């Protein structure tokens, strides 16, 4: 679907609160604009963003047209065990884009 960019610290201490940043290239077309011929440009937005930590959902977001193009979301997680953090974006058309990052906890 598009290019996604995630920022997860590579190494963290057990119990440390780490900041996660996630961004995806997406127009987030609101459906309220009209094109050159006066017709409405159909809505095309990312509706949902989820973040799973070793398969368990730890953060999610429902997005509406008022979220900027190339949606950027920053949040925090507690580093519990080493593993993978997966990110999923799904849009109006039902397409999904995933990204993942590994974290080492010691």
């Amino acid at each position: 679907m598009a290019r996604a960019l995630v920022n997860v610290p590579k190494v963290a201490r057990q119990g440390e609160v780490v900041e996660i940043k996630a961004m995806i290239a997406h127009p987030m077309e609101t459906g309220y604009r009209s094109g050159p011929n006066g017709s409405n440009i159909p809505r095309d937005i990312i509706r949902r963003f989820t973040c799973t930590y070793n398969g368990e959902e730890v953060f999610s977001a429902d997005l509406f047209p008022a979220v900027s193009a190339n949606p950027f979301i920053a949040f925090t997680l507690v580093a519990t065990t080493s593993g993978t953090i997966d990110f999923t974006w799904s849009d109006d058309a039902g397409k999904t884009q995933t990204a993942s990052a590994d974290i080492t906890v010691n």
Partner: protein
Amino acid sequence: MHEDPLRVYAGPGVYAGMVGRRQFLRAGMTGLLAISLPRWAVARPSLEEAIRTFTGGANVLDGRVRLDLPPLVENGNAVGVTIVAESPMTEDDHVRRIAVFNEKNPEANVAVFHLGARSGRAMVSTRIRLATSQVVVAVAEMSDGSFWSSRASAIVTLAACIEDLS
């Protein structure tokens, strides 16, 4: 024999069920008004209605949430917001959801974030669109079911959403 109630004979060429001239004009004018308004201006829940839908009618208290929004926005297409809620973020006491609402965009909702004890801190940042100078409200739902909110207003010089591509 039963007659159609809408079609009572009232004279040559006139039926009671017909649309009168005044009625016709009135309907025409309402129609024109509806066409001339932009699509989003017709129906949008107010800020309070949108918050009530989110909380399910529960009382919303002021405090425990901080909404950081720049007071003067040059480009309404990307306004950085940060919401921080005061919470120990433990299994027993954490922030369940954080929602952001606006006052004057075509849609009242901006985003809803679902958090939990594993978030560690109740802090979320994102970038939003603001169609005009307005008030933005952040509401946090705690695990005990209480709702806390914070509002901030921004002056927008370049609006988002409404500009056309033509």
